[in-house]
């Protein structure tokens, strides 16, 4: 197992003697989605600022790839290239007067030649779905767009780890889900994502690993279910239970469900209730889920599929797919939490279409397969990946 970032007994006090961090030791694995959760003043931001050497611990040490951090300018530059940080307030981060200049800032200061800078900026802007925004000034952007620019500025430096301080604060629900979807996509690309948040719903649903902090200490770490399975601890940290867990606990206490691991999301909760009611889930016919890889299937084909098959719902994951849907004039029912929504619709007998691209295609198929294995439901997945026409994924028939 590789730890990408470790802290060993790290403490930190600010100039006025306030202790923000008291002996924190954590080790973070590579390629995971990690959420630091805790109330205001728990020390989340302080800890994050240590990951790329902006703050230096008063005692203890921080390690990157097993190497203790060194704080000379050259080492810090190298570290900051690999550990990118997205600040909570986008206006702090976006200081250049145009989008292009801001995204190009990192690559230019790394001394890349002009052609490479252009390529990287183009790639980063395409990734966050802001092609054509190059000449815009930041004060003409919405909050969600600013956040995307901030992320693009970090992506252009090709970091291994992306640290985001409260990425969804001040964003409307759809924008924040889109940002979180994008972080999912990045994780699929092999990056380690660390966020801090006090949005428990978000942390519970999204993170592979939750680290609960309070008063400069770590209270508990583990999966969302482990951390949020302890209401006393959550209370102590001035947080509240995710609504799914809350409903589940109430159902258990009324004897409607048996006590085991809390469900991770609405899908699992509905399944628990249904299997308790009917003994099994989804006796009726389930709907098909079509998955279209937008890199391989064009907008016309998708439109003809939508007209031909009886598809009631369409969803898109990732910026490419969303851009294509917009070009093709497809009205999307789901732009976030797409796979779960489609499974839910399938279980109520409706067909749906997921548009996505790259590694997300296989991930979607796998997610549905895992769900089918765990729940015993049978959902037909139709993968539309070739230009010749729909080919039916054999192992799901």
């Amino acid at each position, binding site marked *: 197992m590789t730890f990408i970032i470790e802290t060993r007994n790290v403490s930190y006090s600010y100039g006025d003697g306030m202790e923000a961090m008291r002996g924190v030791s954590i080790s973070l694995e590579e390629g995971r989605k990690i959420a630091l959760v805790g109330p205001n003043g728990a020390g989340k931001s302080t800890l994050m600022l240590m990951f*790329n050497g*902006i703050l230096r611990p008063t005692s203890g040490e921080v390690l990157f790839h097993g190497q203790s951090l060194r704080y000379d300018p050259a080492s810090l*530059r190298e570290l900051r290239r690999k550990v990118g940080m997205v600040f909570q307030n986008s206006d702090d981060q976006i200081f*250049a007067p145009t989008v292009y*200049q801001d995204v190009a800032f*990192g690559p230019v200061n790394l001394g890349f030649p002009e052609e490479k800078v252009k390529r990287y900026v183009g790639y980063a802007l395409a990734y966050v779905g802001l092609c054509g925004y*190059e000449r815009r000034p930041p004060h003409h952007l919405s909050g969600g767009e600013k956040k995307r620019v901030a992320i693009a500025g970090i992506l252009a430096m090709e970091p291994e780890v992306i640290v985001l301080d409260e990425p969804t604060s001040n964003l409307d629900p759809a924008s924040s889900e889109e940002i979180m979807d994008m972080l999912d996509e990045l994780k699929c690309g092999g990056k380690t994502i660390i966020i801090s948040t006090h949005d428990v719903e978000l942390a519970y649903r999204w993170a592979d690993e939750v680290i609960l902090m309070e008063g400069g200490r770590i209270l508990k770490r583990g999966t969302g279910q482990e951390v949020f399975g302890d209401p006393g601890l959550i209370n102590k940290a001035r947080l509240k239970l995710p609504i799914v867990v809350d409903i589940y606990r109430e159902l258990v206490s009324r004897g409607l469900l048996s006590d085991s691991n809390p469900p991770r999301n609405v899908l699992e909760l509905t399944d628990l209730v249904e299997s308790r009611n009917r003994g099994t889930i989804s006796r009726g016919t389930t709907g098909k889920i079509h998955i279209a890889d937008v890199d391989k299937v064009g907008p016309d084909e998708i439109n003809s599929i939508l007209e031909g098959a009886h598809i009631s719902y369409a969803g898109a994951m990732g910026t490419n797919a969303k851009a294509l849907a917009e070009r093709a004039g497809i009205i999307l029912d789901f732009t976030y939490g797409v796979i779960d929504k489609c499974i839910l619709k399938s279980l109520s007998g409706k067909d749906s279409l997921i548009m996505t691209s790259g590694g997300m295609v296989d991930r979607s198929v796998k997610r549905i397969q895992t769900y089918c294995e765990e729940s015993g439901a049978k959902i037909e997945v139709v993968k539309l990946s070739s230009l010749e026409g729909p080919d039916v994924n054999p192992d799901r028939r």
Partner: protein
Amino acid sequence: MHDLLDDYTHSNALINTSPRLKLLLGLGAMLICISSATPIAPLFIAITMSLITVGIAKIPGRFYCTLLLIPLSFALLSSGVVAFMHGGGSQLFAMNLFGFMFEIRDDGANLALLLIARTFGGMCSLFFISLTTPMMEIFSVLKSLGLPDFLVDLSMLMYRYIFVFIDQAHLIHNAQVMRLGDAGIKNTLNSHAMLSGVLFLRAWEQGERLIVAMDARCYDGKLVLMEQGAKAKPRAIFAVVGYLVVVEAIVFLTKDIQLL
């Protein structure tokens, strides 16, 4: 929330023409305005520049007029004073106020007229530049003209944060008005002083955060500039040069004409 010149600049119809050409047109017209000995050429420039700004660059006429009212009111006030101050020539107007004679003579009136015309023409040219050329393009032209990097970089950062601070000032002002900070002159002055003080502190803090943000992204003394804007089309160059020649000709042909 605010009605900023900058917003119109970014949505004008001439945004994709060469910034150098726009600067040449604006600055050229401005210089001719100042050098003209009679009000005819400046008035011609004022009218044509306004037509270009409203007609070709598609800046809303109503907004443009309110914008012009600001310098125009200054020009009218100061030229009024000038008209009374300068003697010489025949008397055009006189009045007796508390035993003092106030009179306008030929020379004074002509000078006042010239002053108004020059201000008007100059402002129209300046508004043409500021309403059609985004600051960033002006910065890149300045850089290519050899202005030191640090000056350009510094102005770019200042330009960026103007908007952050306008927002903040607006928010603080709202917070003050909400709690009756504008009730009476004394309160208004007091609120204004507080606003300035707080804004100064915020600017300072923002500066510290800026350094952290730049360091976090490997700052090494370099800020990029967008590549130069669009290349000028031959037809556009021809039109601009032609216009400037015509205006210069008007200056030359009308140099002996006296309006009054």
